[in-house]
C-alpha cells in the first residue's frame, strides 16, 4: 500500500491531466474523483461525497 501514500488520486481516471491540484499526495476527498471498472462497463459512481 506504500505506493498509494494517502491520496485517492492514484485510482482516479482524471489523474494524468487533472487541472485541480498539483499537490495530489495528500488528497482524501474530491468531488471530481471518478473511477471506472476495468471492464469498461458502467462507472461505479464514484463521486467522493463526504457529506453523509
Amino acid at each position, binding site marked *: 500500500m506504500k505506493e498509494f501514500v494517502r491520496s485517492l488520486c492514484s485510482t482516479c481516471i482524471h489523474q494524468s*491531466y487533472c487541472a485541480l491540484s498539483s499537490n495530489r499526495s495528500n488528497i482524501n476527498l474530491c468531488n*471530481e474523483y471518478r473511477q471506472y471498472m476495468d471492464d469498461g462497463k458502467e462507472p461505479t459512481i464514484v463521486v467522493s461525497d463526504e457529506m453523509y
Partner: protein
Amino acid sequence: MTTTLTSKRKQPKQGMLDNVMRQFNNAADIIELNANIRKILEVTNTEFVVHFPVRMDNGEVEIFKGYRVQHNNALGPYKGGLRYHPTVDIDAARALAMWMTWKTSLAGLPYGGAKGGIQLDPTKYSQDELQRITRRFTYALGDNIGPELDIPAPDVNTNPQTMAWILDTYMSTKSPNERSKNLHVVTGKPIGAGGSEGRDRATGYGVFLTIKFWAEHKRIDLKNKTFIVQGFGNVGYWAAHFLKNEGAILTAVQDAYGSIHNDEGISPEDLLDYARANKGSISGYAGASPLDNNEFFGLDCDICIPAALGNQITVDNAHKIKASLIAEGANGPTDVQAEEILLKRGIDIIPDILCNSGGVIGSYFEWLQNRNGEIWHLDEVLEKLERKMRESFNKVAHKTETKNLDMRTAAFVIAIERLEDTYIQRGIFP
C-alpha cells in the same frame, strides 16, 4: 483499550487527523471545554478492524481488511460513510469519524460520528466480487451496525447500490418479522430500496441556502451577483443551478479537465448537458472561453464556491481572490494560512462543516422516513432542509457576532458546546 488520537509516534502519517485535532483543540480552548469532556472527545469510542474471506470469480479466496470507527454517540446513533479505497486505514477512519461527530452536532441532528471502509482498489474487482465483498463485510460487522446504533452511508467508491447490498444482507440476518423494521440501517439507498427524494441535490442545495442566508444577513441582493465554481459534480452543479434561479450569474467553472469563463454568464443546465455528452468534461463548451487554471481563483466575482477538493485556496492565491464570500462546498478547500489572509482582507468564509452539511441532513430525512414509514415529496424534503439549514446558519451567525469569532471557529464551538451540554446533563456512568 483506548488509543489517544494525538500519539506523537504516529504523527508523520496523520495529516488529516492532525488537522481535525487542531480544529477541535482550538475550539475547545476558546470555550474552555471541561477537561474531562475533552478527554472523552479526544478518543474514539469503538474501533472495529475485521478480516474476512471472499471467493473471487476465479475460485481463489482473498482476505480483506475492513474498518469501522465509531467516534462518539452522545447525541444519537453513529453516522458516517463507508469508503472502498487503498488508502483506507484506521487513522483516516478516526479523523473522518471525529469530523462526522462535529458535523452532525452542528447540524442539530440526533447523531454521533463514525467512518469506515475496506482497504481495496475497486478497479481490480468485478461487480459480482464487489457485491460479495460488501455482503461479507456487512456480515462481519454484524450487529455492530444497526438502524439505532450505527448507520453507514455512501462515500468514496460506494454508491446507492452498495447501500442496497448492505441493507439486504443486514435484513437477512434478522428474523422475518423484524426485517422490515431495519430499512434505516443505511442511508443513501436507491429510491426503490427506501431512498429519499432530493438526496442527489441535498448538498448543493445546502451550499446555495447558506449563501442565500449569508446574503440576507448582510442585506445583499443575490440578483446579478457573479459567482465562480470549482468542481462541476453533484455539489457544484446544483449550487450553481439554484443560485442562477435566484438571479446570480455563473461566470467561470473549473473541473478536472480545465477552466472556462464568460463574463456574460454560463448556463449551468446547458453546461451540464454539454459535459454529459462530452465524457463529463466541461472543456470545449461553446458558451464560454477557455481560461488558464492558475487564473481561476483570481477572477473578478462576488462569490467563490470551491466544491471540488481540499487545499485549493492557499498562500499562493489567497491574496488574488476578489470575491467577498467563499462558500466551502468541498471539505477543507481553504488552508490555515490562506484563511488568515482572507479574514484579514475582510472576506467572509462559510465553513465546510456548515456549508456542505445539506448532505447529512438529507440522509437524516431518509432515515426518518424509513423509521416512520413515510415517503416525502421532493418539495417537502427541500422545505425541511431549508428550515434545518437556516437554524444552523443562524446559530453560527449569532455566535460569530456575540463572541467575535470567525464563522469556522463559531461552528466548531457550537458543535462542541452541544456535546459538552449533553455530557454535563447526563453525567458519566457509573
